[in-house]
């Protein structure tokens, strides 16, 4: 079944496809594939069918709300859902039932979308494997022995596994882009302040972003449109005008300048990742883009700044729980939360000062080019339980290698898009990252869409999604 919004929405609008039947089909697929993927913590079957029935009645009555009406989606289990368990992947909040919907779910409900479940995640969204000690390891649809990435791993296991049309994630140090890349999907981290975080359980309050996953850039753009907007309930929310991406049928990047970093971003890449990304860049050039060599600031240094800020912010959220419920944390996240307790307040504040240098550097680069293109992740997804990996004969820590390119960019708040740009010889997805100017989600969606129009990587599906 083709679950793209682009394919389903016209059929739903015309009455050719019943939202109830679609939801029933998706729930049947979840029943079949969930035991292998472990994508969901909670499947909200009754809730979904009630939303689908309402959508069907409204559409029959001539009240079609738009492209997301009747479309099934999964929400990472840190988005608050009224009356529905929201665990944040933790044992401690294992029975927590919020009394309100988060802003994003409010908006999607208003758009008529159908929430079919709460997707699993790395415990407290604090990790990149989505190996969860309380709810089990989430599996990559492309290879069930490998990680889907994280922390939004359930969201991409569900979408990549053909169990929904779009999903929601959050990104503090790569948690949208990593699983998007590892599962062969599109993932958008919008500009900081663009999408409300009201009712999204925090990890690092100056680094957290909420954003969508889609099967195509066009689908992702449609979901982003529904999610975006000012919300006075969120301190970080910005009252900025929404700009619609112009997703042309004929791909062209004529007149666009794309920055290609000469340093850092192409160092220490898996050879297959490098080949795929270099080829993708040549496709962008063939579409008319002018490639501009640029020199990025010292990202390795800013990765450490980001690491320190996140350590402190995340631990501040959990200080009391660490004392009172210590045994109920998984070993890996407990170690991280403990580390954050030792960060000095002066170091944290100076890191927030130093952060401005990276913001200034990227804004200066983006005054010369329209967007910057890099690999998303230097390596393909690791196997579940794998701690180290080898790149060109050198051993690396899986977590540090995976976050190396994506982490520091959260310091900038800039909009970031990952699109599929290849498969390794082992059929493991590779992602291309597009970095945009502040508030220019439209620009990076347009670049990603043009790339998609010229290639077919976004049409590739893992075997489990088509069985």
């Amino acid at each position, binding site marked *: 079944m083709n679950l793209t919004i682009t394919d389903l929405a016209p059929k739903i609008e015309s009455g050719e496809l019943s939202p109830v039947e679609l939801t029933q089909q998706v729930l049947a697929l979840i029943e079949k594939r969930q035991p292998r993927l472990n994508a969901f913590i909670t499947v909200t079957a009754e809730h979904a069918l009630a939303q689908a029935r309402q959508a069907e009645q409204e559409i029959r009555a001539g009240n079609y709300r738009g492209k997301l009406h009747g479309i099934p989606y999964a929400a990472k289990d840190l988005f608050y859902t009224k009356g529905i368990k929201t665990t944040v992947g933790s044992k401690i909040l294992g029975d927590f039932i919020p009394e309100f919907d988060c802003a994003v779910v409010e908006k999607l409900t208003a758009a008529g979308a159908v929430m079919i479940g709460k997707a699993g995640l790395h415990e407290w969204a604090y990790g990149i494997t989505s190996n969860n000690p309380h709810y089990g390891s989430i599996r990559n649809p492309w290879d069930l022995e490998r990680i889907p990435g994280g922390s939004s791993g359930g969201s991409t296991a569900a979408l990549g596994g053909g169990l929904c049309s779009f999903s929601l994630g959050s990104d503090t140090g790569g948690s949208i882009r990593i699983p998007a890349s590892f599962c062969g999907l599109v993932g958008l981290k919008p500009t900081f302040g663009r999408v409300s975080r009201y009712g999204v359980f925090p990890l690092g*309050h*100056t680094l957290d972003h909420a954003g969508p996953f889609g099967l195509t850039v066009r689908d992702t753009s449609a979901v982003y449109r529904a999610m975006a907007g000012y919300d*006075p309930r969120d*301190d970080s929310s910005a009252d900025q005008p929404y700009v619609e991406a112009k997703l042309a049928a004929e791909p062209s990047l004529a007149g666009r300048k794309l920055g290609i970093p000469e340093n850092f971003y192409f160092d220490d890449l898996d050879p297959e990742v490098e080949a795929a990304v270099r080829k993708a860049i040549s496709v962008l050039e063939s579409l008319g883009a002018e490639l501009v060599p640029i020199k990025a600031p010292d990202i390795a*240094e*800013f990765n*450490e*700044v980001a*690491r*320190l800020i996140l*350590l402190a912010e995340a631990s501040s959220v959990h200080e009391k729980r660490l*004392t009172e419920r*210590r045994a109920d944390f998984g070993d890996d996240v*407990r*170690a991280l939360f*403990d*580390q954050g*307790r*030792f*960060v000095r307040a002066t*170091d944290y*504040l*100076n*890191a*927030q*000062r*130093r*952060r*401005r240098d990276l*913001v200034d550097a990227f804004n200066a680069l983006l005054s010369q080019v329209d967007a910057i293109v890099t690999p998303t992740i230097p390596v393909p997804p690791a196997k579940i339980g794998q701690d180290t990996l080898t790149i060109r004969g050198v051993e690396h820590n899986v977590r540090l290698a995976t976050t190396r390119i994506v982490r520091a960019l959260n*310091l900038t708040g800039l909009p970031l898009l990952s699109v599929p740009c290849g498969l390794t010889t082992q059929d493991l997805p590779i992602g291309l990252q597009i970095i945009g100017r502040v508030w220019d989600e439209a620009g990076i969606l347009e670049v990603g869409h043009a790339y998609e129009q010229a290639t077919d990587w976004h049409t590739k599906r893992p075997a489990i999604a088509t069985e």
Partner: protein
Amino acid sequence: MNVKQAAEAWQFDIPDDELAAITPILEDVVAKTAQALDKDLSTTDPIHSFRPTGR
């Protein structure tokens, strides 16, 4: 920083084996960030500064 002494002073109550496991990581973080923060940042406002308008 002496991690063990700090943990005791702040009464973090972290078991010895867990403290031993995070100590080299913390030392690595401290060393690397010390390098990143070794600048005169006195006239730079931290990101996410206080705003008197509240929201």
